């Protein structure tokens, strides 16, 4: 078990280093650099050269990469070229917002999705099952940013109940205690609902499929033949169907982060996704590097967590033979 987790941890480090190297290579292969963006089209070659020298961009790519790596290893992520702020502080402000959004939506969409899928599998073939199937396949098909826009239109413009963008109201600094918490919750509601609704569809579909799969196994027939109560049989099935669902959870993290990038763009949610989109546009090398590193680490950490969870629910994975 520990050896297995150790191997996974090493693989995780390899993935993060790979992402960082790939990002660096892509940034330097692409046309345009931060200096051109800062100085604009009217800059003279001499000004451009001076700007590149000031940012250390006139060194060889390998030297730049090594100095970035050694800086990052020491916790020095550099200074944003477009805003002049330390990257560390920029990301320290952004990542809790993204982690909150992704974490909560993961929790909600899996809780609702597993419940829906289990309910469907228990009433297989009924009209409820069909109706829910149509609903879940549609939810899984809707593009997240579009769903976000529709929710904004309905709740902010038609019903006037929830704010449509940002993470806090203009007066948030004046509020305290419960009022401030309520303000945050109201701002969180729409982005969270969007991200959760997209997730629920695919989780429910997957759970239903996994349960129907397990239901065909001999041990379920045996339990039924023995005369076990229906809820008892359902417990057997659900417990066994949970392992693939948890593994899906780990695998869906990159997709969830992708969804968060779009949803953050729609709702102006101040998270890593928005920082990344803005930084890529401005060729802000240090911020892009740091934001991709952080997102890769979030994804990899989530994968490790899902692995540990799967081992916890399924003794077969824990055993040394597997």
């Amino acid at each position, binding site marked *: 078990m520990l050896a297995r987790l150790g191997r996974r941890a090493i693989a995780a480090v390899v993935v993060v280093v790979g992402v960082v190297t790939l990002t660096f290579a892509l940034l330097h292969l692409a046309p345009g650099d931060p200096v051109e963006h800062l100085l604009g089209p009217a800059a003279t070659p001499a000004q451009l050269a001076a700007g590149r020298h000031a940012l250390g961009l006139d060194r060889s790519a390998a030297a730049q990469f090594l100095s970035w790596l050694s800086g990052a290893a020491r916790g020095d992520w550099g200074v944003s070229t477009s805003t002049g702020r330390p990257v560390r502080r920029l990301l320290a402000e952004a990542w809790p917002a993204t982690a909150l959004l992704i974490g909560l939506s993961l929790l909600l969409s899996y809780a609702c999705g597993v419940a829906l899928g289990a309910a469907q599998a228990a009433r297989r073939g009924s009209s409820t099952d069909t109706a829910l199937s149509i609903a879940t396949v549609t939810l899984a098909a809707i593009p997240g940013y*579009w769903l976000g826009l529709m929710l904004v*239109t309905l709740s902010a413009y038609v019903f006037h109940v929830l704010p449509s963008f940002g993470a806090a109201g203009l007066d948030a600094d004046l509020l305290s205690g419960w009022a401030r918490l309520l303000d945050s919750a109201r701002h969180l509601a729409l982005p969270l609902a969007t991200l959760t609704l997209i997730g629920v569809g695919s989780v429910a579909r997957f759970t239903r499929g996994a349960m129907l799969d397990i239901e065909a196994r001999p041990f379920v027939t045996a339990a039924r033949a023995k005369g076990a109560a229906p809820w008892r049989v359902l417990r057997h099935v659900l417990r066994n169907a949970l392992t693939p669902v948890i593994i899906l959870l780990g695998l869906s993290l990159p997709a969830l982060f992708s969804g968060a*990038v*779009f949803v953050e763009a729609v709702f102006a949610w101040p998270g890593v996704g928005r920082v*990344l989109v803005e930084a890529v546009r401005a060729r802000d090398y240090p911020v892009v590097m740091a934001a991709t590193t952080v997102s890769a680490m979030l994804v990899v950490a989530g994968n490790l967590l899902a692995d540990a969870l799967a081992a916890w629910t399924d003794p077969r994975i824990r055993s040394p033979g597997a």
Partner: protein
Amino acid sequence: MNRLWRDRRARYGAVVLAAMAFLALAAPLVAPGDPTAQPDVAGTRFVPPLTSDRHGVFHPLGTDRFGRDVWARLAYGARVSLTVSGLAVLVSVAVGAAIGAASGYTAGALSTALLGVTDFALALPRAVLLLLLASLWPPSAALVVVVLGVTGWMPIARLVHGEVRTLSTRPFVEGAVALGARPTRVLWRHILPNALTPIVIAAAFGVGNAITLEAGLSFLGLGVQPPAASWGNMIASGRDTLVNAPWVATAPGIAIALVVVACTLLGDALQDLIAPKGTALHR
């Protein structure tokens, strides 16, 4: 084929996809008028759906803020969105099948290395890669095809790898090898044709995914550029006018959802056809 047609999901999927393909092909016939024409911006902007503008021209889905007909843009946008995502899936199927077949049919270091690359690429957040690739070069439809293609091949490679591994132990493959057929011939004539069905299914799911992502990139301004219409940039331009003209962003969103649902259902039906849920064959 007949059995497939009896499945309600397959019927719905095939009908919707055929209708969308017809809409794209026959865009000039079903939607007269130029999708980028702005003859009288002030006079014809924000005409609601199912009404006529002051020149007596009927707009089934209304007009946008430049007075362009939304129905015409939807039809011409179908051309762009369907072509781009179809080509992108072709690219990922080609790359994925090549890598999967190579890693599945060979053994040793090459196979391990290719599998390692696949697993590594699977672990990357796709949006980050998409953002980097799409925003670092000047945006165009061709770039979207390449970017979606090179970020989408991994599941296909995994699938083909597994299929090739299983098939290469089958008697008919061993027979071909014993007869002295070269490895490329064995792969091309004996193994890959038998792995075709799962590839087709994965491609059906892939098209749905690609349409959503294409629209997402265009929505962020990194995909197909205006004034050309694509479903994604229609949503993006409708975003600014959500309050007074919600129909501009609604129509392309519904079109995307319809196509993606159709792809999913068709894929589901195909999958059940070769290995129905709840039988031993499944998984």
